[in-house]
């Protein structure tokens, strides 16, 4: 039995997810182990179909694994029933998806406050928190807009604000810049960078190198398994000047 210390927000051991059976068996996630420390940003990169989205769903308790174990905020989720798992998810995880998943008929601020209301916060407290978060993502002036009136980048920033409303211990993001053009990507990049700076724990699965490059640690995934892992912090081989082609 592996003990979980408080500094590890997310821990997975021997995680596996099979689809189908017999000849048609697909092992989407194959023996993956992972520790994410508090305050750390981890990026998982890999070609489409490598299992990284499935992995994120398993880590966040959105999908059940075939074998292995996951501890979320110190709790082993394998033994939890649906309701207990949903509660743990609501209290500890914020999700950000490629397609934003905002409610079209709710305004930006209503989208952001919704999880807080569902968690039983008072309407006033939920609205206050949602307003603060919209300000933090630079959309205070768009609070009463419907998603349809927002650009893709703005919608994703609303989705990030919503992910943060319950003060989650960890944010799990699935291709957060996958639907965005270059300028909108830069906005989301800046936002993730500031979350990271504020000590938010983040796991990002992506094939966008720019968002992956905001991470402390990069994991490469192929055919359902981790094949490479590296720290991105500290230790480029050259200075910035060398990147620009200037002699040192």
């Amino acid at each position, binding site marked *: 039995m592996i003990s979980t210390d408080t500094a590890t927000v997310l821990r997975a051991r021997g995680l596996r997810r099979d689809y189908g059976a017999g000849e048609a068996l697909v092992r989407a996630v194959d023996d993956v182990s992972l520790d994410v420390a508090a305050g750390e940003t981890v990026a998982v990169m890999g*070609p489409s179909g490598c299992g990284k989205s499935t992995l994120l769903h398993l880590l966040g308790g959105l999908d059940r694994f075939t074998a292995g174990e996951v501890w979320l905020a110190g709790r082993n989720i394998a033994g939890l029933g649906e309701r207990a798992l949903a509660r743990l998810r609501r209290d500890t995880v914020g999700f950000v998806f490629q397609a934003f998943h905002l409610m079209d008929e709710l305004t930006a601020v209503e989208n952001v406050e919704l999880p807080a209301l569902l968690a039983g916060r008072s309407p006033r407290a939920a609205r206050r928190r949602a307003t603060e978060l919209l300000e933090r993502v630079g959309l205070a002036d768009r609070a009463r807009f419907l998603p349809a009136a927002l650009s893709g980048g703005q919608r994703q920033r609303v989705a990030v604000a919503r992910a943060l409303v319950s003060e989650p211990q960890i944010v799990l993001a699935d291709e957060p810049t996958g639907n965005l053009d270059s300028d909108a990507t830069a906005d989301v*990049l*800046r936002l993730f*960078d500031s979350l990271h700076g504020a000590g938010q724990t983040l796991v990002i699965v992506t*094939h966008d*190198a*720019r968002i*992956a*490059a*905001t991470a402390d640690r*990069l994991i*490469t995934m*192929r055919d359902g398994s981790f*094949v*490479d892992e*590296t720290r*991105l*912090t500290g*230790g*480029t*081989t*050259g*200075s*910035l*000047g*060398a*990147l*620009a*082609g*200037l*002699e*040192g």
Partner: protein
Amino acid sequence: MRQEVVLALLAKEPSHGYELRGRLRQALGPLGDAMNDGQVYVILGRLEKAGLVTSEQAAGLPDRPDRKVYVLTAEGQERVSDWLVEVSWPRPDLTEFHLKLVAAAAAGLADPLAIVDAQRRELLRRLRDAQRAALGERDGSAAALLLEGIVLRLQADLRWLEACERTWTGRRSKR
């Protein structure tokens, strides 16, 4: 740094060496940290010898290099004009990396995918550094524009590595 860069910075008006350094620093932002301040004076010395600039001592001041005011000669002017219209662009050297993968696989020396992974690690570290520097710049500063170019190039290289990964994964599974 090419001599023509210093020459072109001098085209605005006769300048002291430290003024040229200042213009470079402003254009390069954090990238300029890699620049050796003495370099500008070395280049100015060479340009003077080549007859592309002349210098005069500012009156009544001791003989120190930063007291000199440099001026473009007619020949220097011409060199700058030629340089501005010259179409040169650095060629990315992808061939060596490509052949590394081919040779490693052919001789069974190393797994091409492991070589791709190692290269990706390095490029992502560079991307991280360049991107952080870019986020720290004011929008529209000269240095932000240069950093954007560096970021875009790294992205292009990383996309090519993805293509390498796809191809070599395919070849490996056929073996």
